[in-house]
């Protein structure tokens, strides 16, 4: 590399056939700033939702004989009473912001910086780079506006409404993908370095996941229904959800690690062979692991087994990445002591190793029976998100700051402080969530000697967690405090940048026609020919050839992920036995479906599951376990992944309408220690009866058999609302509620899980 002042003429083409060019660092600076800004926003929202889970009872918490949080009551009250700030709406904002805005921009920052240098070329198109940047930021802003308004698709990590989904596909494939692959094709470095393999896997797989999980039929600009229902929707969703972890939070960050860690350590990568083996095994095996999110649900048993076993097999491929990262630091550990960048990387990679050990462990069915629906999972994902994604991103930013702003880092000491406060924050968060998860998991399943639940009152198991929830707030606040330190360092470093950035000119020779290196002959003697061929194969020279052929390389990645997906999907789709039907299960009425849309919109699934597992402590607590055939009209499925509140699948008919009315208005009026937000707005908001026909028609288009019911959607809905309202009056409730949204929600809740006790329509007609 030579600086502009040294460059021979600055023009491209020299006597030696070298071409001169410069890297586009301006777009990298933009992505870096966006990483910081959205990281702060996403984590701040995380802190708010963590506070929300203690806020409703905080004034009552005792500590050392006193009530230290009593004075906070007036401050805290709004955050569980205002509809736009309710946990169910903010939690998706937190997850989307941290994953797609913070981690997303960090990925783009890493990709745009390293790809240019690894390919010895400028990005394919500056226009596409900028369209990518601004397009992605516009998507984030629209997410931040729509989610608090309750506009959501109700699928975890895929909540954004369909117009934003389309924008994501355009920006990801059309801007980012084209720009990246265009750069690969224009490269001046023959072979693709391992970081680029991981970027390739990221781009193609995320595109496939996003498109297939988001297939939906719109029923208006902000409303849509996924084409899949029930078990299939759950299956597709967790194929997506798990692989979002794999291909959004793992592979691109491994790519980041493979570039920035050896750069910062100034050491060669430990093992090229390990890179090859762990890359391909990771890409192929990860795809299968999704069903481990659905153990003991209505998913077929074989799918659950696949999810568990492929997760176990994933342990070593994941650790291959950790080993290659940590062992690259051999001989450089003295630098780790002195350099905050390397400290962030070491802890980041270590957390990657811990999370990828814990992940397979949690996917073992018997472990999962304890951990599922508890905070153990929350602890697990935050070890990954804060430890691995967060610290890798921070390490990268600290390494980039002096280079991109062409100055020195303002304060190394502050970076050290950030490292330590962040690390302590993660540990407090992580350990408190483990303690909370295991505590609650054990309380749910505890039977006394008579065989009766020891803690039949669900809220008791929640109250036990409150001290841990307070510690989580402290841990999260420390971590966010570290980000503020980064922001200060960032700003102060930026202030000392030169008046004009120096653009360095780089020289490299263009690629000539590729001659594949010849595979060496086998040195084995006195063996059969096939052994000699195997010997040559395991030298991996064929892979070296692929590294020079990006199109072929990409095609093989696509084949790996599509084949793995097809093996999983096709049996679920075609084997009829996997889709048992129950004759008495009928579609939701238009009013119930409208109520269900409210349930989805309010993000009830972020705290309530609708999936009673076949275990005695669950059937004792909730009732008959859930069966696949009960969910055939659930677009989208709402099985949930966490029980901050109890399961709701058998809620229908278990309580009176008036109970629900009072409870939605103010949960604490009915359940003293409840931490559920208030939904008073639903008592005043009117039902939009006119909107129902469009929604029901959309569902009919994707196979929900409404038949005759489509003729008078509004009339039927009004009749049912009037009936519920009348029952409510008879139960001693208020009159005149038949036009209010709460009636639709109650209609839905009272329908939940009741069909199995009804007589099938065909039989009833006889």
């Amino acid at each position, binding site marked *: 590399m030579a600086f502009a002042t040294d460059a021979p003429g600055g023009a491209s083409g020299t006597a030696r056939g070298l071409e001169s060019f410069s890297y586009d660092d301006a777009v990298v600076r933009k992505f870096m700033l966006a990483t910081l800004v959205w990281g702060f926003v996403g984590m701040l929202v995380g802190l708010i939702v963590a506070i929300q889970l203690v806020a409703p009872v905080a004034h009552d918490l005792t500590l050392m004989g006193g009530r230290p949080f009593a004075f906070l009551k007036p401050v805290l009250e709004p955050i569980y009473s205002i509809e736009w700030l309710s946990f169910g709406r903010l939690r998706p904002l937190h997850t989307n912001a941290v994953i797609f805005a913070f981690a997303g921009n960090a990925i783009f920052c890493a990709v745009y910086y390293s790809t240019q240098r690894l390919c010895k070329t400028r990005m394919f198109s500056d226009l596409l780079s900028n369209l990518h940047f601004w397009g992605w930021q516009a998507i984030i802003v629209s997410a931040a506006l729509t989610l608090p308004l309750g506009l959501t698709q109700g699928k975890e990590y895929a909540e954004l409404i369909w117009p934003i989904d389309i924008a994501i596909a355009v920006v990801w494939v059309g801007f980012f993908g084209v720009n990246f692959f265009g750069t690969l094709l224009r490269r001046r470095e023959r072979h693709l370095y391992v970081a680029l393999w991981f970027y390739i896997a990221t781009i193609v797989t995320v595109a496939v996941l996003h498109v297939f999980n988001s297939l939906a039929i719109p029923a208006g600009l902000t409303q849509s229904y996924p084409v899949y229902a029930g078990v299939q929707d759950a299956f597709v969703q967790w194929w997506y959800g798990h692989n979002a972890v794999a291909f959004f939070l793992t592979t691109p960050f491994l790519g980041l690690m493979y570039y920035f860690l050896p750069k910062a350590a100034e*050491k*060669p*990568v430990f093992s090229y062979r390990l890179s090859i083996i762990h890359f391909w095994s990771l890409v192929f095996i990860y795809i299968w692991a999704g069903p481990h999110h659905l153990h003991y649900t209505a998913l077929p048993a074989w799918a659950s087994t696949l999810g568990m076993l492929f997760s*176990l097999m994933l342990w070593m491929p994941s650790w291959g990445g950790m080993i290659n990262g940590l*062992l690259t630091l051999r001989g450089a550990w003295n630098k780790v002591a002195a350099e905050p960048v390397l400290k962030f990387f070491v802890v980041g990679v270590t957390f990657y190793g811990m999370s990828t050990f814990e992940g397979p462990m949690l996917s073992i069915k018997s472990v999962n029976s304890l951990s599922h629906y508890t905070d153990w999972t929350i602890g697990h994902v935050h070890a990954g998100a804060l430890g691995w994604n967060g610290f890798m991103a921070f390490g990268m930013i600290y390494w980039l700051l002096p280079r991109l702003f062409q100055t020195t880092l303002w304060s190394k000491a502050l970076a050290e402080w950030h490292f330590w406060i962040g690390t302590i924050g993660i540990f407090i968060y992580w350990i408190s969530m483990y303690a909370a998860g295991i505590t609650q998991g054990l309380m749910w399943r505890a039977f006394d000697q008579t065989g009766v639940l020891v803690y039949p*009152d669900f809220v008791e198991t929640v109250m036990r967690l409150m001290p841990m929830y307070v510690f989580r707030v402290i841990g999260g606040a420390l971590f966010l405090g570290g980000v503020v330190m980064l922001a200060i360092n960032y700003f102060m470093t930026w202030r000392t940048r030169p008046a004009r950035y120096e653009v360095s000119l780089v020289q490299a020779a263009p690629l000539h026609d590729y001659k594949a290196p010849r595979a060496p002959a086998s040195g084995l003697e006195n063996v059969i020919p096939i052994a000699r061929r195997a010997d040559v194969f395991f030298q991996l020279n064929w892979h070296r050839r692929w590294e020079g052929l990006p199109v072929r390389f990409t095609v093989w990645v696509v084949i790996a992920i599509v084949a793995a997906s097809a093996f999983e999907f096709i049996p679920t789709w075609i084997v009829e036995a996997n889709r048992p039907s129950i004759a008495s299960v009928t579609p939701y009425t238009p009013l119930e479906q409208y109520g269900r849309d409210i349930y989805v919109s309010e993000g009830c699934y972020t705290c309530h599951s609708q999936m009673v597992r076949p*275990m005695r402590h669950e059937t004792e607590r909730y009732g008959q376990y859930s069966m696949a055939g009960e969910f055939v009209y659930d677009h989208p499925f709402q099985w949930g992944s966490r029980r901050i509140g109890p399961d709701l699948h058998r809620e229908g008919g278990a309580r009176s309408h008036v109970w629900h009315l009072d409870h939605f208005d103010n949960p604490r009026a009915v359940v003293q220690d409840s931490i559920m937000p208030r939904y008073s707005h639903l008592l005043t908001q009117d039902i939009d009866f006119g909107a129902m026909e469009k929604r029901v028609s959309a569902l009919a288009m994707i196979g929900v058999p409404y038949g005759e019911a489509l003729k008078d959607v509004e009339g039927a809905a009004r009749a049912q609302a009037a009936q519920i309202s009348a029952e409510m009056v*008879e*139960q001693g409730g208020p009159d005149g509620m038949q036009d209010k949204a709460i009636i639709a929600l109650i209609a839905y809740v009272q329908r939940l899980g009741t069909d199995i006790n009804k007589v099938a329509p065909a039989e009833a007609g006889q």
Partner: protein
Amino acid sequence: MTRHTSEHHPDLLGDPGKDRILEHNYDGIQEYDNPTPGWWHWLFWASIFFSVIYTMFWHFSELSWTEHQALDRAVAAHYEKIFASVGELPPNDETILMLMHSDDPDIRNLQLVAKGTFTAKCAACHGATASGGTGPNLTDDTYINVKKLTDIPNVIANGAKAGAMPAWKGRLTDNEITLMASYVASLRGTNVPGKQAEGDVIPDWPAYTPETK
């Protein structure tokens, strides 16, 4: 790449100095020609081997069982443990009074079971101490839909007041309904302060006369 990588054992903790470096150079990043660590290989193979055995046992052998079978066994065992000694519990005066008053330790035990069920299913409306909430106070002498003892199992089974009291038939077994009726009946007159009395004062429950056998 030479074909002798596997013969070299890199020092994982110490100095990489003896490792062979490849001729790769990407923006200054180089790579060693080290083999994958042996323990890594073996654990990878072990996870694959385990997966084959696991699949064969759980999906292709006669010895395995499903989670639903396990649940059915656990439920049957529990029901057997709780109700085996008393058999069927018809919802009549004699049975309810027996469940309320018998000194038999098995019957007292059943009342503990009933108390747990009450906390799980009834407390949400009637309160943890049965002193009322959305639903009426069950500890006073007044009743809304109950005139005589056998009305209690009927109200529990079929509900009342347009669903203000939900129907528990199908959610609780017949035995559990009778048992719950006896538990609720025994709460009468404990007069836990709570919701104001609703309904009418009704005659006392019939007297308990233990059968002599």
